[in-house]
């Protein structure tokens, strides 16, 4: 497919000459680099609450972002109108960051290599609404049937289809069509006289509706949400203080996202404000730890054919056997640091400036049998499910909340405990990893990562691991 058959050409009559003209305008006052990001986003969402489909919404937003880089400076402007006058005006505003006559020689636009990591034939946004409504109805029904103590269920389904086109002054012209779908279930349970407890589950990816019919069904997510709420009914207060902690596989990989992932984004490191700044080549984790960020896994929520600067995504080894290997780069940081690009430039929408971000971040499997890992702990905490996490890049401190966890006593899981926050320090925590399981799992596809006000979808993954020392924020 060339520009002429692309979505933006056919829908908005945009030609290669137009793109050249906009880039020329962007570089008319100097600057080293300019790019254009065209976006057309269709979304829909359905929500069910109290067994009533209470809301259904759909819509379209579209726009273009124009960026000009001059040295370390960035000028940015956008327009939600794709008429040539409005795009030229945005280019003129972004150009103001540079001073003086144009200096760079533009490279002629050339279409990049094409691949499709998410070959979804019928985008979820193009399916019948009645089929999508059926998903939340099935989830609602099943969660309620799971146990009579379940008394409230909320099921929400959301999907989107994003068309993008990136054209850059260094000659990149790339297109992508990015589908996404997600189903979430929340359940509340209570037993006589006691307070309610909640459970939550969700997932999806860059998939079509068939994913929820054949792979992860509404019943799967419903069961998981209801099960977690029921488990919590008998939970006791969580312990407080330093403990040995075993983290289960999959979504628990959010530990890596917070503990090391953000700290390895190149923008913080070129500015020297990350706890990991200047540590490439140093031991920052136990030799059992190899951490990878991979944007190329088929149909995953964090995957992209190309990043939001038009660069092809790839598999990046961040930490290898405990040694820090490199950072996640976007174009600006890789130019300034003189490092190769890693395909990690991402943005929330055309109204946002790209920055280095994670895609799917996971820990490679080790050799331990997961049951042996639990058996090796005489007193500790097993975290089976997490809520969200957060990190302070500069000090390296990070937290995540354990929404389902159990005491480990003499090598066995005993009582479930209530929600507790776990806290650690990035460059420190992974040194205490003493066992890594052979059971790598990726999460089910519900991660949203926030940075400087921009949200992007991400994936995480991990095998079962044991951390010898971590602070658990309970009350007991």
């Amino acid at each position, binding site marked *: 497919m060339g520009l002429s058959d692309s979505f933006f050409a056919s829908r908005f009559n945009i030609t290669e000459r137009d793109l050249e003209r906009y880039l020329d305008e962007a570089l008319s006052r100097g600057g080293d680099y300019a790019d254009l990001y065209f976006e057309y986003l269709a979304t829909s*969402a*359905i929500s069910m609450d*109290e067994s*009533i*489909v*209470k*809301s*259904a*919404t*759909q*819509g*379209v*937003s*579209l726009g273009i972002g124009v960026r000009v880089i001059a040295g*370390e*400076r*960035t*000028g*940015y*402007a*956008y327009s939600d109108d794709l008429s040539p006058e409005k795009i030229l005006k*945005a280019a003129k*505003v972004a150009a103001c*960051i540079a001073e003086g006559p144009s200096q760079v020689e533009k490279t002629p636009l050339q279409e990049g290599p094409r691949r499709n990591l998410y070959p979804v034939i019928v985008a979820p946004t193009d399916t019948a*609404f009645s089929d999508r*409504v059926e998903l939340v109805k099935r989830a609602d029904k099943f969660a309620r049937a799971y146990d009579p103590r379940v*008394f*409230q269920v909320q099921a929400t389904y959301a999907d989107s289809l994003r068309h993008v086109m990136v054209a850059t002054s260094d000659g990149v012209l790339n297109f992508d069509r990015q589908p996404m779908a997600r189903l979430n279930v929340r359940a*509340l349970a*209570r037993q006589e006289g006691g*307070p*309610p407890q*909640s459970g939550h589950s969700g997932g999806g990816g860059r998939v079509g509706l068939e994913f929820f019919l054949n792979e992860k069904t509404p019943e799967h997510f419903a069961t998981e949400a209801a099960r977690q709420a029921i488990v919590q009914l008998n939970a006791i207060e*969580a312990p*407080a*203080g*330093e403990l040995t902690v075993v983290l289960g596989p999959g979504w628990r990989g959010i530990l890596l996202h917070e503990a090391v992932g953000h700290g390895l984004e190149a923008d913080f490191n070129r*500015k020297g*404000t990350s*706890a990991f700044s200047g540590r490439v080549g140093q031991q920052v984790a136990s030799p059992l730890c190899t951490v990878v960020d991979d944007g190329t896994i088929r149909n995953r929520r964090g995957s992209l054919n190309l990043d939001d600067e038009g660069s092809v995504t790839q598999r990046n080894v961040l930490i290898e056997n405990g040694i820090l290997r490199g950072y996640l780069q976007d174009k600006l940081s890789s130019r300034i640091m003189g490092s190769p690009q890693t395909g990690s430039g991402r943005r929330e929408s055309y109204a946002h*400036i790209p920055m280095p971000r994670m895609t799917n971040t996971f820990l490679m499997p080790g050799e331990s049998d997961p049951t042996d890992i639990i058996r090796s702990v005489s007193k500790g905490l097993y975290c089976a499910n997490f809520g*969200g*996490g*957060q*990190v*302070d890049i*500069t*000090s390296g*401190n*990070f937290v995540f*909340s354990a929404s389902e966890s159990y005491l480990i006593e003499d090598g066995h899981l005993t009582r479930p405990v*209530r*929600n*507790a*926050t776990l*806290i650690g320090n990035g460059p420190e925590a992974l040194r205490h990893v003493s066992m890594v399981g052979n059971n790598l799992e990726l999460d089910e596809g519900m991660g949203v990562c926030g940075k400087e006000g921009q949200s992007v979808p991400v994936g995480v993954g991990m095998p079962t691991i044991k951390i010898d020392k971590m*602070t658990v*924020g*309970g*009350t007991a």
Partner: protein
Amino acid sequence: MRDLAADIVKQALAAGATGAECTISEGDEFSANVRMRELETLKEAGSRGVGLRILVGKRTGSAYTSDFTTEGIHLMVRQAMELAEVTTEDPHLGLPDPAELGSLEGDLSLYCGEVAQVETPFKIDLAKQAEAAALDADRRITNSEGASCDTNLSRNVFANSLGFTGEYRSSSCSLSAVPVACEGASMERDYWFTLARSFTGLEKPADIGRIAAERAVRRLGAVKVQTQKVPVVFEPRTARSLLGNIFEAVHGESIYRHASFLAGKLGEKVASEKLTVIDDGTIPGLFGTSPFDDEGVPTRRTVVIERGVLKTYLVNTYTARKLGMKTTGNAARGITGNAGIGHGNFYMERGSKSPEEILKAIPNGFYVTELMGFGINIVTGDYSRGATGLWIRNGELAFPVSEVTIAGNLSNMLNDLEFIGSDLEFRGSTAAPTLCIGEMTVGGR
């Protein structure tokens, strides 16, 4: 714009809707960021969007678009109508009672035209001054995440099929600084900011930079303390987040789902009698103020908790009907969809003690300056978060602490409020003074 919104409502009725609500919002944003005394980023743009929610009897559907052409609007109306086919009848669904609609009279001081006229170099200079003040404040400020000066101008229009149309404009400008302090192996950052409707309302750039620097420097060399139960003091910045938790707990949707530890507690004592919490959307110039809510109901002053007693939940029309109440004028929504619930200026009434007096009364405790993570369960009130701050020893701030947790239960915490400070100030739409909770678990070594 008002005419366009009213016309879209008419188009929806013509297409078969029995009721309709249309929201139009338009905004211009500007941002200048400087770092290490140099301009780093300039961003400037405007955008707009329109959303429609329709009712067909007791069913609803919503759609939105940024395409304001005739075809774009037609498509939106069709899409909203299409969705009313897939939703379920809901007996509580509907627009507000006509008698409840309206808009506050008079000037609420939400908009200052000057903000649009201020030149870019002036804004860059403000950011440079703030960052320079931070960099020059202390030799240990060795780096910076930068300083920025941002402005926003927006216009909100709302119309419904009961004949309501309303419109208001608002402006904001802000200045913030994020310095990084370094000493030995310890590196810490912190921030400070000022926010106003006009440039003349902003605090001095030099003060923003200096305060941000002091905050970053005092975190250097932080240690992890032993696990223990002690009094915990929240400075206003962190106390504000507790107020956010109270808002979620009195949120009408959490109440009808029984998903709040305050559900079913109306008229009961839920907190220390020192605590009074108010929601007031009518205070001129503040950031939680608007002439009407997102359903066209005038905003008002509502006492939520009075001397420890829960007086009301905060609701919109839908949740009011579910709970047998009247709307409190707290409807809030983005561009589209059913109205949710938001707050106006949501604040805690000030107490009588100064922050120094509160500290003086504490022989051994924890003063929290930053909270991390999402470990708050509104259903049960269970509270467990990462915390950074200073240790209180014999009534004084003695040394910095980090990588610890604080934990308790919100219900117990509210009842265990020992002191409420006199230092209430609005920096955004929620505000709380310094607070002291009698006992929480600090998790550390």
